[in-house]
């Protein structure tokens, strides 16, 4: 999956629609449509997915320059872990 869209540019409008949907989903969950722990964890994962899309498509790294992609992937993994571990250890 990651390879599939890592190699190819997705139309910007489609990327935008996915990002908007993910944002609204995170918002709806936080507004109370799920148990708090589920809602928060899903919101974090959705944020990570959105950032992966921004890296790959908006920033045009999905199909170019492996070293920078790796650096940003590590950043994303670290930030996601900070949020998840921080949330669950509270």
């Amino acid at each position, binding site marked *: 999956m990651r390879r599939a869209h890592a190699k190819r540019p997705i139309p910007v409008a489609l990327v935008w629609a996915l990002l*908007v949907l993910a*944002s609204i989903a995170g918002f709806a969950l936080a507004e109370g449509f799920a*148990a708090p722990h589920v809602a928060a964890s899903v919101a974090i994962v959705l944020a990570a997915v959105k950032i992966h899309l921004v890296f790959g498509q908006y920033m045009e790294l999905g199909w*170019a*320059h492996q070293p920078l992609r790796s650096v940003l992937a590590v950043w994303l993994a670290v930030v996601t872990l900070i949020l998840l571990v921080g949330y669950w250890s509270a």
Partner: protein
Amino acid sequence: MTTLAANAPHLSASPAELPGDSGVWFFIVADMCAFAVFFLVFMVGRAADPALYEASRQMLDLRFGLANTLILLTSGALMAQAARDARRGAFQRARQMMIAALIAGLPFGLSKALEWQAKFAHGLTLTTNEFFTYYFVFTGIHFLHFAIGLVVLIMLQKVAVDDRMPTATRLRWIEAGGAYWHMVDLLWIVLFAMLYLLRAA
């Protein structure tokens, strides 16, 4: 997908190619690391006093958070399109897209001003508690990035059609400025989730 890729070979940079400018990328990564430390500091604080953070979080208006997210994502989409247009050599269209990105991004400033004003009106300030300290400092620094991004967009739309500049140079700056603008999006994505969406049990 296959058709799209076949139709858009011009969009594909080689795996070794870095879109934009290596120096600007260094700045972006350094800045993102600084924000990662901000996120860590916030989450450590939250873990120490979840009740305070949750009570404070409930004083935020999630609609502002969502609106800000949608504004930045829309502006980011227009900027991404501008970079793709520039890569095709359509610099005039890239310029139009960047002006659109600028206009689409402006309401973020308004929304932020309204949101902060509402907080001040309720007596919530930088020193109210730890949550609001981080809320004002991190969103304030993020806003500064946004304001600089607007200036970058204003300069880039000029660069796009500056015939004195080689097209490769113009593309490099459009992609570099675009990467910066997308960093503003993605840092907000984390801030939105972290400040607004982490509902405690």
